[in-house]
């Protein structure tokens, strides 16, 4: 009898452990988020003070995207999403890009009006000028980055699925 072949793990234990790891991941994110807010409050809106938290946010996001694409999970996520939602995943990606661009435009517009304008008329002028300029800059860039990332991840993920199921005709 091959002892190694019949090695069975208790899947309930593994499942529960994975749930705990997931909670730890969320906990780390929550702590980083609180830390960013606290540092902005203490030191002002400066990125150099929150560089570590930003690296954690971006590295985790990029790592998940790469691994999900490599394992074909991204295609599964898109398939599950599109079968349940009225809007396709791709449409939502574009909408998120546009919405983020608008939010950034509003943020910079308000910031400009509050911090740099002196008269009420100047405030309105500064707000709309910065808002429009920010939107013209951020919306195309964000949409482009998100659509390119989506397309690349989907392509890689579809390829992984095809490789996994390649000797399976259906």
């Amino acid at each position, binding site marked *: 009898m091959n002892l190694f072949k019949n090695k069975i793990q208790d899947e309930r234990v593994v499942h529960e452990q994975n749930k705990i790891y997931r909670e730890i991941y969320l906990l780390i994110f929550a702590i980083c988020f609180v830390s960013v807010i606290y540092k902005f409050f203490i030191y002002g809106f400066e990125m150099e003070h929150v560089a570590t938290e930003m690296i954690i946010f971006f590295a985790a996001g990029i790592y998940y995207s790469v691994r999900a694409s490599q394992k074909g999970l991204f295609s599964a996520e898109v398939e599950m999403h599109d079968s349940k939602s009225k809007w396709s995943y791709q449409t939502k990606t574009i909408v998120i890009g546009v919405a983020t661009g608008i939010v950034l435009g509003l943020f910079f517009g308000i910031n400009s009006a509050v911090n740099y304008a002196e008269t009420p008329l100047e405030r309105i002028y500064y707000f709309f000028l910065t808002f429009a300029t920010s939107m013209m800059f951020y919306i195309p860039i964000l949409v482009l980055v998100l659509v390119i990332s989506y397309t690349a991840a989907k392509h890689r993920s579809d390829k992984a699925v095809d490789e*996994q*199921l390649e000797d399976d005709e259906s």
Partner: protein
Amino acid sequence: MKNLKLKVARVEHDLSQAELAEKVGVTRQTIGLIEQGKYNPSLQLCLSICKTLNKTLDDLFWQEED
């Protein structure tokens, strides 16, 4: 080990992997991997597949010892 019983039952019902996946509420990839023996489904998913294909757990998932 490939699960040919599942594949045969699916074909008997004239369902593609994608159609069975939709009925069960999973992705085509998951059904494909179960048929290839590369993924062990949960009992809940096995039951759901059995109910969809009008089969018992024995019919689809029992494996005889070599």
